[in-house]
């Protein structure tokens, strides 16, 4: 065993036990006897790189198409580039040969993309999403709302995004005030936890982010984020700053640490940032964050969300194109081990920070729960986070076992959501992903083994 973990080790035993317990609480997989077309398409795509590329390119362009005919033309254009097409693909190509066929194909494909998007995106607006958010809460899952949008390339777009965040903070605080009490979701041993929780992207708050020159973008983003923190403080809401690709990490970290050091924010709002365990130097970044958290004595403490990271392909391609060493782990087991090491480091650092472990990997989640218990921590001092549409079953299992779980809920229209959607689909069809492994029937013991 590469990391020397012994299955007889008490922690390993507890991880296995917790993992099996959670797996048993997953909802039965076949609630819908008829699998949706997009789910079948994803299964086909996971096994065929060319088909996957065609499908992704189609999903990517779908919202920019102007008619069903246009949609179908794009779809057949992409499928034409697939060699040895499986039956359904060849059928789609044939149908795309006539105008009437294209209209039918376009309608079917548009439906498929919409269906796919609705799985990951909770609504076009907060109002659309409010029912789902309330149901989640009632089923034992808190939320953090993420506003999808087009890339910010102008100051007007940055202002508009900041305004949307402001409205969302206020709207969510209002909506959430009407939700019933759920003690596990709104209190840990350090005190109350806000119901309204919004995830904010620094890259959307400024058009000036540049990897070679982080200062200018940082100043511009600080200028727009400050009023949002003021508003969150008034409302008693939580603001979480998302992490994106490595190109913006320095600016994002700078924005958060600078603002949270300001005297006005010493006693609120509740705020957090993200550490991406797939980065080889994520341990150093975490130490920097912990040092900040310890030195500032802010209340409430900074919340650190530990994720694996969603830009793995991007980081690797960029590094290869430039001849740089890869900033991310290329080996899944190495990455998983780092995730667990950082989980332990974070849990040990309490109460200087609040800890949120965001993963769909049952082993990583069971490890966090088991280590927390072994270290004498209470379950309520560990938050577990999942993505809407990818972690729904895990969310249900965690809630059933009384864990605090928070679901990342993107809101926005299909055009704006496409980049997000493609990243999620990548994750869902990656041969390395836990979800894919689980769906393809890998044994539970293997999935729960130490990486």
């Amino acid at each position, binding site marked *: 065993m590469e990391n020397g973990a012994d299955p007889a080790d008490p922690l390993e035993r507890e991880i296995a036990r917790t993992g099996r317990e959670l797996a048993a609480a997953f909802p039965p997989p076949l609630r819908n006897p008829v699998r949706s077309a997009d789910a079948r398409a994803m299964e086909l795509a996971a096994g065929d790189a060319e088909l996957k590329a065609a499908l992704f390119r189609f999903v990517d362009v779908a919202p*920019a198409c102007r008619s069903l005919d*246009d949609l179908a033309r794009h779809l057949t254009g992409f499928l034409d580039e697939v060699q040895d097409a499986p039956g359904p693909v060849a059928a789609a190509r044939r149908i795309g040969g006539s105008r009437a066929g294209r209209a039918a194909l376009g309608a079917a494909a548009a439906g498929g993309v919409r269906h796919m998007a609705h799985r990951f995106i909770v609504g076009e607006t907060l109002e659309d999403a409010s029912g789902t958010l309330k149901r989640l809460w009632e089923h034992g899952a808190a939320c953090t709302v993420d506003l999808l949008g087009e*890339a910010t*390339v*102008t100051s007007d777009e940055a202002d508009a995004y900041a305004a949307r965040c402001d409205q969302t903070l206020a709207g969510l605080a209002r909506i959430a005030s009407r939700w019933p009490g759920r003690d596990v979701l709104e209190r840990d041993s350090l005190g109350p936890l806000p119901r309204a929780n919004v995830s904010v992207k620094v890259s959307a708050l400024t058009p000036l982010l540049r990897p*070679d020159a982080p200062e200018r973008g940082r100043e511009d983003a600080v200028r727009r984020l400050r009023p949002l923190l003021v508003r969150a403080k008034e409302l008693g809401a939580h603001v979480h700053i998302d992490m994106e690709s490595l190109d913006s990490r320095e600016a994002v970290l700078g924005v958060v640490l600078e603002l949270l050091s300001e005297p006005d924010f010493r006693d609120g709002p509740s705020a957090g940032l993200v550490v991406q365990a797939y980065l080889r130097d994520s341990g150093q970044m975490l130490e920097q964050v912990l040092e900040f958290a310890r030195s500032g004595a802010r209340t409430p403490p900074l919340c650190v969300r530990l994720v694996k990271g969603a830009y793995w392909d991007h980081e690797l391609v960029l590094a290869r194109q430039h001849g740089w060493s890869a900033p991310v782990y290329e080996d899944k087991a190495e990455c998983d081990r780092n995730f667990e090491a950082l989980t332990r480091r974070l849990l040990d650092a309490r109460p200087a920070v609040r800890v949120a472990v965001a993963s769909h990997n049952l082993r990583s989640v069971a490890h966090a729960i088991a280590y927390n218990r072994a270290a004498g921590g209470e379950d309520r001092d560990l938050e577990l986070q999942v993505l809407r549409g990818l972690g729904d079953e895990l969310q249900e299992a965690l809630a059933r076992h009384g864990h605090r779980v928070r679901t990342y809920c993107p809101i926005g229209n299909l055009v704006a959501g496409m980049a997000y959607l493609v990243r999620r689909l990548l994750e869902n069809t990656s041969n390395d992903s836990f979800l894919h492994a689980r769906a393809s029937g890998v044994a539970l013991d293997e999935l729960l083994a130490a990486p």
Partner: protein
Amino acid sequence: MSAAPEPGIAPPPPFRNEPPLELRRAPVRAGLAAALEQLDRRLPIEVPLLLGGDRAGADRAELHSTDPGEPDRLVARAPIATVADVRDAVAAAAQAGRTWSRVDAGLCAGILRSAAAWMRQHRLELAALALRECAKPWPEADADVCEAIDFLEYYARGAVALSEPRHLHQVPGERNEMRYVARGVCAVISPWNFPIAIATGMTAAALATGNAVVLKPAEQSPGCAAMIAQALAAGGLPDGVLSVLPGAGEVGAALVRDPGVQTIAFTGSQQVGLDIVAAAAQLAPGQTHIKRVVAELGGKNCVIVAADADLDEAVPAIVASAFVYAGQKCSAAARVLAHEAIADALLARLAGAVSVLAVGQAADLATQVPPLIEAAAQDRLRSSGEQAEREGRVVAVAGPVPDRGWFAAPTLVADLPAGSELLSRELFGPLLTVERVPSVEHACDLIDALPFALTGGLFARDPGTVRYVRDHTPVGNLYVNRTITGAIVGRQPFGGNRLSGNGTKAGGPDYLLQFVEPRVLTENTMRHGLAI
């Protein structure tokens, strides 16, 4: 294990591009200011006139290069070559070339690769010099050095491969062999906008294939040329194989006309390029070769944005293509041809993106748009801006622009009439025009009507659109869904067609063929009825 390779001609590892500095990492950025300070203490650089193996120039008139962002700062001082210097340099090159052309290709390659290694060791110093002398911001200056290293490494390998006799059809009793040999003295006339990369590239291609070189660098960047010569000398290039003649247009003109020059490698403006082609066609007394001209000229590069383009990607890529290095790249974007379905949205977003461009000194990492190279360029862009205001609509101007230095405000222009010469003249500065087109087909027709054919861009997601544009635009380099600048050696062989150049591709697999002549040997191997 195979036998140990002979020293000096060990086969090099496979080519790989020199990685640019990873400037997104703070510790990497931290070293830049110190490198610049160190260079500043050495200024002005005294550029020698390298004539054969000698350093001449004590009694010549001088030319000065200055910092475009701080015109009082003297960067380099160089003696201006005289007509007699040109004659002497070509004669010395012809002499040195007789030996150099016989040196084993592997040894030549070793020298070029050693020069590349020297440049690697002096990377920041070279970049700092390009920054000061030509106002190249750090990322651009660093890319210029990387490209120079790439050219040395790439052509070194290519020349070794080219030195192998070519396979020909063989029959019994006869041995056929084709070899490529050096053409003779090569005049390299290089521009200031890639002051290290292009001068190094053309020089390296000629040297690698056994030609002696007389280099006439742009009068704006003699300091960079001096450092290139230093790198090659440090790499072990024998004295006399490279001469460097600083000067302006007269020096280049004399060089082109010299009967001892066999090849002319030129990168620069269309007018000068066409003058060179004309002059090279005139037979001078004593001339024994038909001169060959390698010409990389200007462009009026268009970017098509189709209805299904992803504007999130198109806007930043177009802005970078048009305004990085203040648009002073022959590959830079000049015209956007936007499909009418997305034209309004694109124009609005481009306007917003242009208006927040940071104009400033090249040394400041925050700077996106540095000053232009010289006062004349500033005047030219100023009047183009005024013309745009008269003929069309100025949609966005970035600012503020520093008072001192040759700055020009990045400008976005729309609604120019179809016949406006702003749509056909190369401006070589930070002015981008946007036109609305009814279809991609129409956009291709507009591009096809231009005399230039250097680079082109397309933002579209339908594979059919990509194929159509590929088949209906004559440009030398078509870029899809990305910036249209930044060609990389070995990956994007670079060069234009039509009046943008004679189709040679720098950094490509067949570029070296321009610098050699083929010779065929046919030997009868029948002796006394026996095929041996």
